[in-house]
């Protein structure tokens, strides 16, 4: 092999490897997309005889499905809203006051962002039984809020640090209260940060399966993730088309929000605190 050939191989190899990796990543995804348009979908990828939206129509027109999506939205929106509001409140003194134990508090928060939630679910279940919150949608929301709180505080505090102090002071001079200052000056300047936190917490709980699986019991209260799992177990082997259509519909909010979040995360990808929702 002479130098020229080697050079060509070095040029082409990366493209070949990346293309191969890309295809491996694409195939499973392609299956779900193609099958969702095919009423005779099978386990393997195949061209549909006729491309129809029937699967989607069936999934969307089913009342239990609508309900599951509604509950999922309620849970995730409720969680995102509460995390942002409570997180902003917590971030304020952490960003603006000189507190004695601020540093250790923030490190504890960072530590909590990385703990696996899975490990506490058995005691949480027991706790929910004794608090009479078991099988309660709002109970699940509260737990979601608590589990995303460390992440929310960490991110919002860091975003708040970058809002200059003097603008807030100017508002005070004009007679604004501390809360009005936060609401009218600090929060609007943190919109990208708030959106990032809201999006990540929303996606985290929207995609979560384990938490509602443990804390809910009545099928009528199941969010979309559980409904999909149920669907998978009951009719998975029979109706791949509908299953795929449900999956695509269920994945859409996560995908859309990710794309949206890219607009807010202007630069790079931070390592810190971005572990979970």
């Amino acid at each position: 092999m002479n130098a020229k050939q080697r050079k060509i191989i070095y040029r082409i190899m990366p493209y070949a490897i990346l293309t191969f990796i890309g295809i491996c990543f694409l195939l499973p995804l392609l299956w779900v997309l193609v099958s969702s348009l095919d009423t005779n979908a099978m386990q393997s990828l195949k061209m549909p005889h006729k491309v129809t939206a029937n699967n989607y129509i069936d999934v969307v027109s089913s009342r239990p499905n609508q309900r599951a999506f509604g509950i999922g939205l309620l849970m995730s929106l409720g969680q995102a809203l509460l995390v942002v509001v409570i997180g902003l409140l917590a971030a304020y003194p952490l960003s603006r006051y000189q507190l004695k134990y601020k540093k250790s508090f923030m490190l504890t928060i960072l530590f909590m962002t990385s703990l696996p939630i899975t490990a506490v679910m058995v005691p949480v279940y027991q706790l929910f039984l004794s608090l009479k919150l078991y099988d309660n949608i709002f109970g699940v929301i509260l737990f979601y809020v608590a589990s995303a709180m460390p992440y929310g505080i960490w991110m919002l505090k860091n975003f708040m640090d970058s809002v200059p102090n003097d603008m807030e002071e100017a508002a005070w001079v004009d007679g604004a209260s501390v809360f009005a200052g936060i609401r009218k000056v600090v929060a609007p300047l943190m919109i990208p940060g708030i959106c990032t936190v809201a999006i990540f917490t929303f996606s985290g709980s929207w995609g979560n399966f384990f938490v509602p699986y443990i804390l809910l019991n009545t099928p009528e209260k199941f969010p979309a993730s559980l409904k999909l799992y149920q669907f998978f177990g009951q009719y998975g082997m029979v109706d791949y088309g509908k299953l795929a259509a449900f999956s695509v519909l269920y994945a859409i909010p996560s995908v859309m929000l990710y794309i949206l979040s890219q607009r807010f995360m202007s630069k790079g990808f931070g390592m810190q605190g971005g572990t979970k929702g």
Partner: protein
Amino acid sequence: MSSVTANVLYQRRRRTNFTWFYFLFPSIAIMLVFFIYPILLTFLYSFTNLALTGEAAKELKFIGFDNYVHMWEDPTVRISIWNTLVFLMGSAVIGQQVLGFIIALLMKHKNRTFRRVIGTVVLAGWVTPEIVCALCLYSFFGDEGTLNMILEFFGISAVTWLYTVPMLTIILANIWHGTAFSMLVFQAALDDVPNEIEEAAVVDGASRWQILYRIVLPYIKQTITTNAMLVTLQTLGVFGLIYAMTGGGPGTSTTTLPIFMYNQAFVNYQLGYGTAISLLLLIMGVVLSLFYIRSVKE
């Protein structure tokens, strides 16, 4: 109003006693009740005979280290610890990290459209919720799935992936789901490696491999450590992906600690024992988190 007044006002507000407490109260309260208290309960319950049914359900008794003795003697515990380690090493430490790094490295200085297409495809697996991932990969590896269809096209006989090599399938599924995170992290890290150093090495006659080993890898060492910890922590808690794909089976071949914990607590109704297992998981998480904090602090 003069700036002096503003300043006074500002100072007074800042120093108001205990206002910080009102701000922090809601978040601390909710974390205490639903996060920290359950962690403490984990320690407590793991020493009890807590159960959902049977005699033990009527009265809660402290049974000392019985659960731990039971764990020590239970062969399934050893199997699930082993499975967890294999899953962590295979899918997180090696799989996602190495693949993510390779993708990031190969993508550098490539055609922009090409990068965008490959990047989007990899990211799609990450953005997709885990149950959908499980479904996609379940059908991909299924007996009549896409992978076997491709193999048959090349004249290779079909393999029952989910039965023959179940651990491999869930590892690959988790790689599919998680690689994008490492890819993004390494892309950012590689962009930070100064071009001048690499160029100087080229002038000095260093080969591609030498540049990679001697310059690039040492330069991003910190990122590799931090990322390894983060990815491992994320993988430690994986439940839905495995549960939906194999349910921990066949037998116990894909029973990782979260699956085993779930089975003991909610299938066998042995909450005390399940909690003892989750404590194991928690301790692994705590140790890894402490390392993670240390590596971030540096």
